[in-house]
């Protein structure tokens, strides 16, 4: 029985490894009322983790058509993730601090 499971397990692990490597996670931090990047490029299906590295509350969101999201308020230290499953250019801002702005380019 194990003879059959082991190759299947190995195959599953290999496939699993490949699928994790295909969808990457990028981290963008918020500190001193600024995003750590002004613009990043990711592939469709990738995840961006927004981390509040500041000592105040932030609220990351986007109202870009078809790519909108609201991460709600993040206390210092909190991280929230967004998976971008549509190609396009999302304008990402903080609802609380209007001067915080960045772009996420999502490619096919």
């Amino acid at each position, binding site marked *: 029985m194990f003879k059959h499971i082991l190759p299947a397990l190995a195959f599953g692990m290999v496939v699993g490894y490949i699928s994790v490597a295909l969808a990457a996670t990028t981290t963008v931090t918020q500190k001193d009322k600024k995003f750590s990047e002004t613009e990043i490029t990711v592939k469709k299906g990738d995840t961006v983790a927004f981390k509040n590295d500041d000592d105040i*509350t932030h*609220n990351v969101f986007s109202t870009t058509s078809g790519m909108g999201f609201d991460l*709600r308020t993040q*206390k210092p230290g909190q991280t929230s993730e967004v998976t971008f499953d549509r190609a396009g250019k999302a304008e990402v801002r903080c*609802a609380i*601090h*209007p*001067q915080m702005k960045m772009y996420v380019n999502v490619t096919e």
Partner: protein
Amino acid sequence: MFRIAVSTVAAVVFAASHIATVHAADTESVAALGPAAQQSLAALKAKYQRPTSIPFPSDNPYSVEKAQLGQMLFFDPRMSGDNYIACASCHNPALSWGDGLPRGIGTGMTKLARRTPTVLNLAWAELLMWDGRKPSLEEQALGPIQTDVEMNQNLDDLVKELSAIDEYKLRFTMAFPGEGLTGPNIGKAIATFERTIVSNVAPFDRWIAGDESAISPAAKRGFDLFNNKANCAACHSGWNFTDGAFHDIGLPSQDVGRYKELSLPSMMHAFKTPTLRDVDRRGPYMHDGSLKTLVDVMRHYNGGGIQRPSLSGDMKKLDLTKAEIADVIAFMQTLTSDDPLPQVPRLPVAPQPRREAAR
């Protein structure tokens, strides 16, 4: 022909000589702190350095012609439908560019929904109005002019009215060559003048620059509380004491604030953080003038505000003692600067009609 004084812009002069520089102050109070505490106080004070210049946008750069014209328009009551309300009626330089009222008053003595904000230091603002609905000073300037409950003046009619006054036509041509007197240029001229309205050096700034005698020990304790236990600096940050951001601070008001512009849960009852420059002179406080004195303000913050989903994550019960509250107020009082008041401009009037020749 009339003279146009190109000399002194009678607006608040931004004194570049008052640039604050931090240098190590060798006095008793600082020496009493250990080296680590001294270093962190110096680092904290560095966050409050005054800027060295006023920013002007590239699509509306500064010119003395624009600023002088903008100052005239700002003080001109003919900018309103009934010809008796000027920008300066509510944004009164004698009252630190506000009106001292809990809520503004518009045409026909209509009580407005919110308190008149000050015009101080708006060159650094990202968004204007309590709810941030105006993205620039240029656009904001044209708002109250046209609003029916405020100045109630149709913009096209205003352009015609001002065009009948030769000096205005000439000033617009000089300020905006090739464009002249248009609605947008009215906004641009007023915005240019407004950007020159900057708080002068206050006792607090002299302390930041190294003068240990500039503020009292109570105020110094208040500065520490402001940045630590009282957590004021979470929103009232930097030399202008505002983050230009939107927070629900838990006031008992039905006004939804920024939620009308940006309907995210965190924006319910959220209003723009005002500056604390001249705060001692600018009561009553809050977007609706509901808190009369700085003691009332401190009591509100000390209580933590109404607990609701939109309450800012940076609001909390503070447990400040009466003495600590007094110290924070003493500190806030060091933010009042002796601003030179602009000279009220001599406004152009239309010439008398020519008499008919005697028969």
